[in-house]
């Protein structure tokens, strides 16, 4: 079951114990009509498999790409998505909100 964000933390633990490279992305701040609340998680493995969500599906692709970098380098990243952002028009939030997503490696 992956009904709650806490279940996703369990998923991260399971994947890491299996020896997979794992990153955890967390919505840390939102402005305006953000689709998922602060504390929402996306768990990503080194193959790009992901569970959970940090938006309504708008920016997950971009977060997964960044997460693969984080798994590779080990250095955490803060990602910003929003309508004012250049990249937003490519992968932005259609709802018009703005979010910060913290991506860290599970070591």
């Amino acid at each position, binding site marked *: 079951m992956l009904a709650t964000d806490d279940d996703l933390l369990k998923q991260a633990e399971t994947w890491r114990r299996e020896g997979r490279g794992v990153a955890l992305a967390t919505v840390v701040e939102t402005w305006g009509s953000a689709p998922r609340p*602060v504390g929402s998680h996306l768990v990503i493995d080194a193959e790009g498999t992901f569970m959970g969500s940090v938006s309504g599906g708008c920016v997950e692709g971009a977060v997964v790409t960044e997460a693969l970098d984080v798994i590779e380098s080990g250095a955490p990243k803060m990602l910003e998505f929003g309508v004012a952002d250049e990249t937003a028009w490519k992968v932005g939030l259609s709802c018009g909100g703005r979010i910060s997503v913290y991506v860290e490696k*599970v070591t």
Partner: protein
Amino acid sequence: MDLALLVKLNQERAARRAAVLVTEIATGAQRLVLEKDVAHDPYAAFLTDALRMGKSGVIESEGHKVFLTVQAPVLRIIAIGAVHISQALVPMAQQLGHDVIIVDPREAFASPERFPDVPVHAEWPDLVLPKLGADRYTAYLMLTHDPKIDDPALQFALTSEAFYIGALGSRKTHGKRLERLQAMGFDEQTLKRIHAPIGLNIGAISPAEIALSILGEITAKLRLKPDGTKIGN
């Protein structure tokens, strides 16, 4: 995040204890604060607030940003009555991420065959409920229609911190129930905690529809402020 930290966080959750993961955003440094240690933490005031609201978020302390990942225990629904409604309710509640426990002293109802996926206690509520432990992350549903079973469960629920208490039955049935509970010494304010007739008014008829209306009401209780407006994200 260190795997050991993640494991500890998941263990605390399984043990129904709240915990807060503190991340210094600039450095990525992390530590876990257990519920029992919150009072002595340098961020005690922030942590206490975050835990009460059950909400994760960024705080600013002495010029640096810190992210708090708040983990409150899984919500637990204790259903008194191993009835048809409860059978419909189990998979829906699980889909929502809640734990369910069934209590019914009638062994023919409280059989594992009827409830293969959840703990079933074929015991009287007044005996078993204290053993299951009561906390503010618990909801009690009185679903037997039988005062002999529902009333002792209500007596226990009303003295607990449970965030939701609901009882099945018409307004007339509930009126009689309130009279009995008043006679037992419960005051009006306390009795207002009981949601009855149970569930949102969606015209539910079938057991599954009633289960849906109950879970809708529990969700509203969790997500709405008392004035009916949404708690901000």
